[in-house]
């Protein structure tokens, strides 16, 4: 085995291979930084280029890019509060508040370092487990996988901040949103309203970008000014390194959680990083700072999201079953070379496996270094008035969301969820449990379904299930009786805000939630048998919680929102309107013309930029979009009036 490892390592002495790896790392870094584009986009975009390469070079390119996406996506998450990829949403929670407090450098260096270490631990684990990985994976049947998912869901309980009731409700809403679409086994289409788009459910990218991205962009725009005061990135770099050294335990645990989330089918990077975040909060003795800029909240998910990708390789290479969506595309690439991953891979293509492992390790290191090198410059973006940054970010998000499935539905969903996310933020509803619920619905439901239809009720008696069940009980016990979070008053910079909209909107919003949940419950009575379990499990408790919350809201002291807050709200709604307008323009005139119009009008009209710089800005963005599309053969959304 070690011979093969050395032979594979020798490949990297070849400058051609190193150049490919560098190309992959650069591509991955850029794609990671662009909001909404993650590992899937990365591999999909590079795929057309590999068809002329030999298999080793191709894998070096693909793995090189994949290994750094979750390092560089941190930059966007921390600086702009918009997840660089769906998996980076957990980093937003604490990373972005740190940036607002002028500690961007600290957050970034801690994130890069823990990403790097997480990736390397993942690599080592991947290497060591090669001989035993197959039996290890086979140890986990559907019932055990189900219990793991439920355990992950229970972590949502730790993420409710100071509002357990709202947090629980948010988690239920996430579950409900996750059950939109065909139930596993296609038995029934739930909440699809006859829309084909909804059959497969709402894509994760749209949800993460809406709930965190759009909401944050609108909020920042309404606030005006820049993201952070110009106080310099300062000596924070070293502080970040110290933080990682101090919290080395979190790094190790986080990366192991990540590796496992990768190895087990159906869990993926996003769930992995949330589970890691949840475990950090659960195990912390003081939880007051989480969501307001606790460095541990950055280290946890960051150490997990890189190692997930390493773990992903195990089912992909040894079983021919992709551990996550990017791995599925890698699998496709391997098929293209006539390599069928599977049990024989270790015997027949061991050197290829090691090429992949080395690429991953080397790219990880290069990526962390590159990000460290880039971030002082990128961090300056937080000093730029945000209104000037926003158009470029919005265009990227829209284009990225459209590319994932080429359907406008993704953009509708993103905008709708953006409004929801913004409201949740303004009304003090934690958004983390919402995303955890959403991410874990599909696998949980799938494994519940499989467990019941294969074993009946007997699955509850399997030893693995009992062990995991005890863990689950301990976790629930800890949530209920563990140290309470204390006073927990969200501060100005925190991701999960205080109630800013006043009493009436608060009551109205909860009432709306109540109505939606009740309607969903009513609708679910027509779902057969297992298809109804999940919607009911989400809606029945939610109804009671919503009712209780309405009472709480109504009893809360009436505080008229300050005039400034009212102005901000009006502004925010205006910005929402401008996003909707952009969508309408795309629908009418197609992406190209709409983008040019939107950027120019936004800059000239709203941001009060002079007309000449606005024109140049518009030209540069549209030009870049044209260049990218021409290079990569991307398709532009076309309009009704002017399309072709």
């Amino acid at each position: 085995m070690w011979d093969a490892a050395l032979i594979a390592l020798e490949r990297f002495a070849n400058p051609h291979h190193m150049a490919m790896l560098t190309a992959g790392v650069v591509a991955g870094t850029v794609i990671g930084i662009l909001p909404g584009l993650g590992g899937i986009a990365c591999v999909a975009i590079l795929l057309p280029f590999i068809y002329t390469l030999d298999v080793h070079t191709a894998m070096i390119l693909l793995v090189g890019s994949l290994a750094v996406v979750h390092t560089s996506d941190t930059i966007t998450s921390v600086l702009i509060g918009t997840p660089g990829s769906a998996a980076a949403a957990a980093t937003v929670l604490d990373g972005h508040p740190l940036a607002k407090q002028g500690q961007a450098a600290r957050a970034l260096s801690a994130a890069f370092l823990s990403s790097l270490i997480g990736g390397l631990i993942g690599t080592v684990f991947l290497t060591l487990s090669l001989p035993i990985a197959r039996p290890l994976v086979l140890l986990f049947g559907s019932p055990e996988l189900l219990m793991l998912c439920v355990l992950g869901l229970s972590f949502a309980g730790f993420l409710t901040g100071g509002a357990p009731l709202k947090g629980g409700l948010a988690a239920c809403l996430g579950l409900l949103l996750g059950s939109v679409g065909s139930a596993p086994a296609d038995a029934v289409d739930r909440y699809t309203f006859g829309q084909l788009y909804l059959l497969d459910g709402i894509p994760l990218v749209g949800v993460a970008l809406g709930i965190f991205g759009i909401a944050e962009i609108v909020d920042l725009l309404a606030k005006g000014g820049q993201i952070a005061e110009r106080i310099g990135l300062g000596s924070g770099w070293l502080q970040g390194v110290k933080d990682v050294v101090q919290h080395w335990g979190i790094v190790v645990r986080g990366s192991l959680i990540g590796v496992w989330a990768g190895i087990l089918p159906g869990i993926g990077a996003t769930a992995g990083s949330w589970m890691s975040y949840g475990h950090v909060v659960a195990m912390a003795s003081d939880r007051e700072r989480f969501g307001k800029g606790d460095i541990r909240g950055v280290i946890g998910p960051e150490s997990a999201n890189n190692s997930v990708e390493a773990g992903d390789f195990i089912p992909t290479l040894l079983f021919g079953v992709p551990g996550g969506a990017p791995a599925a595309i890698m699998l496709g690439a391997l098929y293209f070379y006539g390599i069928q991953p599977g049990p024989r891979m270790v015997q027949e293509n061991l050197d290829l496996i090691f090429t992949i492992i080395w690429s991953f390790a080397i790219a990880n290191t290069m990526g962390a270094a590159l990000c460290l090198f880039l971030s002082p410059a990128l961090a300056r973006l937080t000093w730029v008035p945000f209104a000037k940054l926003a158009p470029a970010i919005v265009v990227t998000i829209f284009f990225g969301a459209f590319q994932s499935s080429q359907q406008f539905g993704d953009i509708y969903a993103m905008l709708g969820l953006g409004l929801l996310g913004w409201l949740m933020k303004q009304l003090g509803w934690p958004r983390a449990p919402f995303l955890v619920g959403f991410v874990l619905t599909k696998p949980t439901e799938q494994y519940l379904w499989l467990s019941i239809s294969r074993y009946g009720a007997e699955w509850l008696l399997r030893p693995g299930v009992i062990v995991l069940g005890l863990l689950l009980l301990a976790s629930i016990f800890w949530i209920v009786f563990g140290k309470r979070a204390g006073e927990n008053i969200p501060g100005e910079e925190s991701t999960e805000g205080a109630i800013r909209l006043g009493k009436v909107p608060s009551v109205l919003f909860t009432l709306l939630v109540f109505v939606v949940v009740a309607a969903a419950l009513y609708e679910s009575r027509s779902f057969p048998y297992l298809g109804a379990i999940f919607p009911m499990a989400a809606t029945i408790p939610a109804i009671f919680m919503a009712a209780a919350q309405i009472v709480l809201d109504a009893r809360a002291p009436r505080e008229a929102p300050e005039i400034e807050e009212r102005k901000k709200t009006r502004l925010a709604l205006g910005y929402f309107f401008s996003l909707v307008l952009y969508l309408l323009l795309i629908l009418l005139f197609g992406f190209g013309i709409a983008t040019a119009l939107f950027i120019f009008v936004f800059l000239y009209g709203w941001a009060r930029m002079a007309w000449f710089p606005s024109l140049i800005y518009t030209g540069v963005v549209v030009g870049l979009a044209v260049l990218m599309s021409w290079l990569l053969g991307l398709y532009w959304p076309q309009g009704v009036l002017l399309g072709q």
Partner: protein
Amino acid sequence: MRIVRFMAGWQIRSYLTVIGLSFALAAPVLAAAPYYEGKTIEAIIPFPVAGGSDIWIRTIAPYLEKNIPGNPKFNFRNIAGGRGIPGMMEFALKAKPDGLLVLVSSATNYFPVLLGDKAAKYDFRQWKPLLVNPVGGVMYASPASRVKRVEDLAKAKDLFYGGISAIGLDLIPLITFELLDLDAKGVLGFRGRGEARIAFERGETNIDYQTTPAYNATVLPLIKEGKAIPLMSFGQLDDSGNIVRDPAVPDLPTVPEVYEKIKGKKPSGKFWETYKVFMPSAFAVQKILWIKADAPAEALRVFYTAADRLEKDKEFTVKTEKILGGYPLLRGDRLEKTIQQAFQIDAETQRFVKECVSKKYRVKFD
């Protein structure tokens, strides 16, 4: 063809030579200006990147680019989701008679039509098949099921089969169980055949099927270790539309052969009718590249000629063997009748299937 034979390996040098050569050879032809010269053909794939159909077209496209006069460039658009229907509709609505938009389809796109899904408002009769690629399926059991030979199936108890959905490809094995009257239960909800195979390996299920390429790569090693027993193939169609043994696994009996072995008579009845309707679109004509029927005749012709050339191209055969599953890339015009027939279903069989599936697997049809 001489050009193609020249292309041994992917060395840049020979690559460049070929480009030069093709320019040289193309020069006299330029006078006639091939239809596709300097044009880009857009291929709609109603599935996500790196799905089976996506890999299929992306693999053969470079060879088509080389073998179609004028060397057009292929671009790909993946319109995923919605059971493939949005992608199909996009082609149905957007394709002009210029032959610059083509469509890749797979079994997932045929089943909604066969099952009478109202959302599937596309009509295959308005399109013409350019290229067709069959694929096969092989069933196998685990020793734990106490099935040693295919004859033992009849008395086997508690067979568990892992599938994705009763209205997808799994319909074929599920109908096979009914046809052969087996004590088998489908456990549905896996996200892919690969996941179902893992469940088979860990003993959660004990009877399974894989498409022939996956069978060769992942199940043959299991058979060698004694962890799986090959049973039967779903078969392929011969020129007159009869179900015959699969050339990729010629030693395995087909489903109708197994029926005869177990029951001692030729298969008949409603389940057999259903099998005959659904098997071809699931396997025998699974991957099809389509063009609008009113596309220029030359556009169709160049694709057919390209298929003829690729058939004799050793490099193509070797390089794409694993992806095409060892089956030839067939000319669409030769199979047109078979294909259009495969998408016909009589109202009675349709009603029967829907009833059967909704009763046993709780599928709700609109």
